[in-house]
């Protein structure tokens, strides 16, 4: 048996002088085929990471807390995958298990089909961008970026070339000799990225890397990260509690709560077709409506609301409800109209909140529950609706989604 077979080695750096001349400087060969001495087979489109029934329990005896409760998820190659959830949901724990900083209590984690659980972090071809960046304060920017390659025992010339390339990639050439304490937060963020990318990991883990940045910088870095992921072709696993960030950047999102993954899907799936109440509630603003299922088939149902109106709703995959069901309607998917018999719901305007781009109408429905409608503003447009006005609400054929719970 090949000695290398029990060890996933870090990717070998290609000697590629052309990189320096490249306009973007980002032509990074990343596919497994370029790797040396790695048993990982080249299988495009396959899973980069597979998490199988992983449990992680902290504490012992009565103080036991399951940070992860039998989680399974597959993350594809070359994917920008986001773990989204409130603090304490287990997203960072899952990231640490993949990085190797913690052992799973049960289950396995496969990297390109191979169980990496027995490998210590320094033998996993996986790199992390830490929430606090964790830059080495006693080293310069360039030394930080070169650290991983140095630890892999790469030749000096190769390290230098790669560091130069990385500095260019994150636009930090001018500051390479600075100490990490002498650069700004946004710059530290870039160095942390470059440092984690320099050894060309199979998978890059990002633990809320933008949380310490101010709003504008965060927006910039979101685009920057997306660009880097696209150019390097490395699988990114991104942890955040910021739903907007998740929707903007991700190819797919896994929504987590209380140690479980509730739903995995594209940003559009997650937003438009939440399967569970928590997902719907956590992401965006939501109206919940109770109703009675009249008929359901092929992922669509007709639901009768308390007003007697019947509206169509889409169903979560593999779920056919009967009896009572909760519907989700996003505020921007409902329209305000006259309070006549055609309206699905009727109520009274309680509050009107002007938000610049749009206006929120806080309504009180006739059954006493609250409902919000969002309408985009246009200059001079839109009739004024004073609090106290009676209005009807129209819900279009594609506006409602039924929940599993």
């Amino acid at each position: 048996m090949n000695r290398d077979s029990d060890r996933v080695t870090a990717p070998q750096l290609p000697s590629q002088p052309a990189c320096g001349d490249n306009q973007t400087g980002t032509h990074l060969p990343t596919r497994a085929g370029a790797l040396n001495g790695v048993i990982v087979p080249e299988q495009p489109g396959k899973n980069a990471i597979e998490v199988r029934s992983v449990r992680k329990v902290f504490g012992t005896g009565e103080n036991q807390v399951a940070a992860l409760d039998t989680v399974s998820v597959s993350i594809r190659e070359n994917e920008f995958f986001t773990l989204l959830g409130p603090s304490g949901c287990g997203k960072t724990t899952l990231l640490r298990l993949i990085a190797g900083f913690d052992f799973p209590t049960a289950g396995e984690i496969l990297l390109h089909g191979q169980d990496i659980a027995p490998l210590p972090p320094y033998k996993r071809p996986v790199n992390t961008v830490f929430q606090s960046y964790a830059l080495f304060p006693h080293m310069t920017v360039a030394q930080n970026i070169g650290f991983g390659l140095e630890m892999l025992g790469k030749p000096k010339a190769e390290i230098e070339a790669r560091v130069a390339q990385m500095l260019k990639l994150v636009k930090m050439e001018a500051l390479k000799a600075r100490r990490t304490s002498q650069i700004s937060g946004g710059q530290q963020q870039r160095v942390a990225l470059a440092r984690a990318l320099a050894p060309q990991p199979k998978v890059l883990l990002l633990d809320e890397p933008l949380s310490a940045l101010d709003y504008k910088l965060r927006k910039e870095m979101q685009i920057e990260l997306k660009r880097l992921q696209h150019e390097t072709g490395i699988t990114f696993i991104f942890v955040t509690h910021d739903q907007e960030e998740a929707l903007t950047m991700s190819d797919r999102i896994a929504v987590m709560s209380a140690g479980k993954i509730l739903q995995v899907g594209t940003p559009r799936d997650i937003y438009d077709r939440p399967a569970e109440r928590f997902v719907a509630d956590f992401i965006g603003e939501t109206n919940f409506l109770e109703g009675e299922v009249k008929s359901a088939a092929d992922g669509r149902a007709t639901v009768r609301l308390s007003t007697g109106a019947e509206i169509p709703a889409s169903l979560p995959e593999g779920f056919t409800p009967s009896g009572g069901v909760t519907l989700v309607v996003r505020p921007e998917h409902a329209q305000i109209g006259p309070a006549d018999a055609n309206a699905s719901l009727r109520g009274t305007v309680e509050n009107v909140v002007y938000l610049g781009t749009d206006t929120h109408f806080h309504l009180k429905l006739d059954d006493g529950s609250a409902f919000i409608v969002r309408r985009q503003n246009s200059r001079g447009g839109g009739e004024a609706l004073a609090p106290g006005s009676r209005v009807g609400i129209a819900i279009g054929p594609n506006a409602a989604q039924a929940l599993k719970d």
Partner: protein
Amino acid sequence: MAKRPFDIQAQPGFGFMALLTFFALYLPIAALVAYSFNAADSLSRWDGVSLRWFISAWHNSAVQDASVRSLVLAVSAAALSTIAATMAALATTRTRPYPGLTFKYAFINQPLMVPEIVTGVALLIVFSRIKVWTGYSGLGYLIAAHTAFCIPFAYLPIRARLESMDLTLERAAADLYATPWKAFRFVTLPLLRPAIIAGFMLAFVISLDDVVITEFVKSGGQDTLPTYMLGQLRRETSPEINAIATVFLALSVVLVTAFYFVNRRKP
């Protein structure tokens, strides 16, 4: 006349008391230093300024002997205690509480809790017997005793530094393919270096200053500079003692100043 604004920090008489305190702290030292430049044969008279007692001390073979012994002892004890304290600090920080951790804290700090005179006579009891049994009466006993009471001092800054460093940087190193040894060598140790230097200097000063324990542990002819001075103080003292004390004092000030700056420098 303009009324002075109300100073919320002022307390009547405090400034006077403070300045009196500083005056009292430095007056005796000033007197000691002044007398070391006395040209007279005895401390009872003042015969003008001279360096004769510095020169006389310099040529005193007993002083030379004691100085060398003090330095050898302080360097050995500081080095040994710093190594032991660094290892102990690594073993007792950045971990979940484990059985024996509190015991270790208490044990390492034990030499600080017992009056020196008590430790001194306890060591006298044990070492005098070992000296009889083994026939060895070299510097080893003093080095062992000094190392033991220097460990808590060396441990202090190193532990403090480690506690302020979380494990993220070591994790980052491991994430970047550094083996545990390499992570220690290239990340932990460089970050710990100022604290290790501070610990060494503290231990060095503590060992250099010790008189009580040394007095009880030393074998015949093993005077260190402080015990030599203590012995001299028994008789009618000549300004030579002042000269030695002045040099010693200057050395202490240099060390403390250096320590101050090492400790203040943020890595």
